[in-house]
């Protein structure tokens, strides 16, 4: 099972994600903003997957990812966005994003994506 770091500025959504992911047997760490993500990722021992909310106050998920990528962290990333496809604007091709998850979350699709990335 995978080590997953999730970040969202909503405590409720963090609780939901953590509960569902732990029920699936994953090991979950959480952060409430982009800075928390940067702080919690140990470049030497990074999580298997990052699940980041695109928009958070302060440092966004995208900003945090940009910093991590610059520091050489190559962990697979899923971006959770309140926008549905089409509003993500640029594809951030330089950030090697592995997929977008839109809200409300389709958990079956999320689990499938995680299984694919954790392999």
């Amino acid at each position, binding site marked *: 099972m995978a080590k997953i770091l999730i970040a969202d500025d*909503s405590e409720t959504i963090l609780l*939901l994600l953590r509960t569902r992911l732990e029920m699936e047997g994953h090991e979950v760490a959480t952060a409430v903003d982009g800075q928390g993500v940067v702080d919690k990722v140990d470049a030497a021992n990074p999580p298997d997957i990052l699940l980041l909310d695109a928009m958070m106050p302060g440092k966004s998920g995208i900003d945090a990812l940009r910093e991590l990528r610059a520091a050489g962290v190559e962990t697979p990333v899923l971006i959770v966005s*309140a926008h549905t496809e*089409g*509003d993500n604007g640029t594809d951030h091709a330089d950030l090697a994003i592995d997929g977008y998850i839109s809200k409300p979350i389709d958990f079956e699709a999320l689990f499938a994506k995680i299984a694919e990335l954790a392999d």
Partner: protein
Amino acid sequence: MLTGLAVIGVARFLQQRQDYENATARSYQREIVARNRLAQGRHPAAARAAVISQQRRRQELRDEISSETRDTALLVGAGLIAGLTGAALLFTGLISSMRRPLEDLVDASGRLAGGDLDTRVKVGGLSETATLGGAFNEMAEELQRRAGERDQLDRMKDEFVLTASHELRSPLTSVQGFAELLLLEREKLTPKQAETVEVILDNTRHLVRLLNDLLDLARSDAGRLTIRPEQTGATGLIEDAVRTMRAQLDARGQELSLEIEPDLPQIEADRDRIRQVLVNLLTNANEYCPQGAKIGVKARRVDAEVEIDVIDDGPGIPEQQLEHIFERFSRGDAGETQRVGGTGLGLAISKSLIDLHGGTIGAESTPGEGSTFRIRLPTIASNRVEAI
């Protein structure tokens, strides 16, 4: 001025006529007095001479008045002709000096009506046309100002809908997520509790659908509804949509027949968006048709297009509703929509999406017999449209 001359002439003629009649009347009176004297035998020689003299006098008056009348008539005629000629010349000048500004105005009105709100006319010439031109420019100014305000309001509305649907999405994610979580432990819930959670979930999904529809509509209005077309097979897309709908169709005991021509050519389409349109059409058929209805999907090649029909044998759509069916918030009749739910936006969005693909969508229906919705999508890669 020459017209004035003619008027003076006429006045003079009338005065001469009056003088002539007065003089003639006096001459008759004098002749009558002379004739009385003659009849009474008083100074007969002088009386006879007076009668003759008065007759001669009237003859002179007649000669005089006719020559004067002729002169006056000539004067009046000359005056009139000169006056009319002058008026005609003046009128021609007036017309030509009005015609140009009026033609400009007609031209400018046409451009304004055509949407060119920058249109203005040159103000000048006669005071009347200048006033008209000034009024036209003021009107154009006002129209432009109002159009600007309206555009700004539209932008604010679009931004509001985009922001609102974004902000609503997070709490909805929680509601739906936790309701799903509860249902995962269904065995620990009483039947009543499980049913309650299902109601919450149903309504949450409905809200999400409404939100997605509103978002698509706002995007469409803001010119931000986009498609990502790729070469794809129509057959797979149709089968996908049917698979998505299978459970709902089965739940109402509706029979679905699929008739897809073999070897359909590839189309250039955004798979998710075309699937969305097909699912929307099938959802409508599913919801508006009674239990056990027959629903069919047919696809075939027609010239350079793939034609997809979604056919049902349901209640059909009255003609006056059919005309407006692709307009937003156009719904079936009130009784039906109470039962059916939905947002009244699905077909409007479907139309926007098919338009973006360079295709067409239309509907035919016979009340009591059923409806057919027909999509046509081009097979040739000629529609790389990114936004409307």
